[in-house]
């Protein structure tokens, strides 16, 4: 009998880290975005994507709410807002 032993490539996709978020989530304001791609490069979960100015989105199924994207945004166009249900 075998149990969980091996995993195939791409297994991080099946591991949805969104539920780790406890306090806040990023909100993309889409006003002053210059499409510098800093948020995409900095995201430790690689869950931000976008093509051109003011199009960037976060995939909340994976976002852990770490706030790095908001911190690196040179135009302060991402803001961390309170997670629904957080006190």
């Amino acid at each position, binding site marked *: *009998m*075998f*149990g*969980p*032993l*091996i*995993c*195939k490539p791409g*297994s991080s996709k099946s591991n949805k880290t969104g539920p780790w978020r406890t306090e806040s989530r990023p909100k993309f304001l889409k006003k002053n975005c210059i499409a510098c791609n800093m948020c995409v490069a900095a995201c430790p979960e690689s869950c931000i994507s976008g093509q051109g100015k003011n199009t960037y989105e976060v995939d909340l199924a994976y976002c852990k709410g770490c706030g790095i994207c908001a911190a690196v945004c040179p135009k302060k166009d991402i803001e961390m807002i309170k997670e629904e249900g957080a006190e």
Partner: protein
Amino acid sequence: MKELLEGSMAVAEIVRLCKPGVISAYPITPQTHIVEELAQIVADGRLNAQFVNVESEHSAASVVLGAVATGVRAYTATSSQGLFYMAEVLYNIAGMRLPVIMTTAARAISAPINIWNDHQDVVSLRDSGWIQFHAEDIQEAMDLHLIAYRLGEDRSIMLPVMVCMDGFILTHGMETVDMPSQEQVDKFLSPYKAPYKLDVENPLTLGPLVDPEYYMEARFALNKTQEEALALIPKLTAEFAKVFGRTYNGLVEGYQLKDAEKVIVAMGSVCGTIKEVIDELRAKGKKVGLLKVTSLRPFPVNAIYDALKNIPKLAVIDRALSLGSFAPLSAEVKAVFFGKPKQPKNISSFVVGLGGRDITKDSIKEIFRLMNGKDKQAEFIDLKPELLKESYE
């Protein structure tokens, strides 16, 4: 073909016949002769294998782990401190379900440093997930390697197997053995086919981090497979008998158990001495017998129960300790009978032959004699009280 061989040479030769692709080992007494001979065999071109010289046992175990992970048959051997240095990797090999086959020349553990034979090294590794066989003589040690490869590499098992042979007594003793031909071995043992392996064309991860959602199932499956091995071992030994003409039970072996009133339970080379004593005592009309445990892991609970349920007096011989508790084999044999409808009236526990202290025929006779009295708990035989002191002032 019948040959007079040293135990280590016999094992090296049988490993050659099993055709491992990778051998890696670090020398340690009393295992050294085995891997020295295998290095010579590879250097002479008698075996097409890679012999990987390493700087430690930890690395030797890691090399064979990696080799089997890529789908290659592998072999290593060690002893005592070397086995303990391997320990971390050994648990990984079992957990990753890689059928590495290893010979362990059973030896005492430091301190005090001692290179001679007992079972403390191998018995301490009983919870590692490895299947563990104990050989009584050189022929059995050879044959158990063949069975080990078949068993470990079976698709339903996929577990590493340790063949334990008593250091010096078997590794350095000479015995006439029946060396099988390559044709016989090939008939019994096909090339290793890994169900999954490390391959750059088809990437996968072996031994990944598993969180609490997955870990228990991996361990449950490993434990369950040990049970399944119990059912497979007798089938393999029956097949072995057809090819090689020697019959083993593979789990336990009874000697003069029918009508026996006093029976010793033991493992390893001491069983030869016990059989000799039994023959002498039987000639005088004493009803004595032996149950040899060949497979310590998986532990053959039902086979032991069936063999011993009607025996009035048992004595379990341990050549290792579980310091601060019952002697290990005795504890497990007692557990076999708890809550069962039939059980022996007495089960005594004796500790003998630690660090190479000779176990003579007199030692065994003493055990049979002591079985007349009250149950003994981890009673040391042949102890020298004059060497024990309360202080060094």
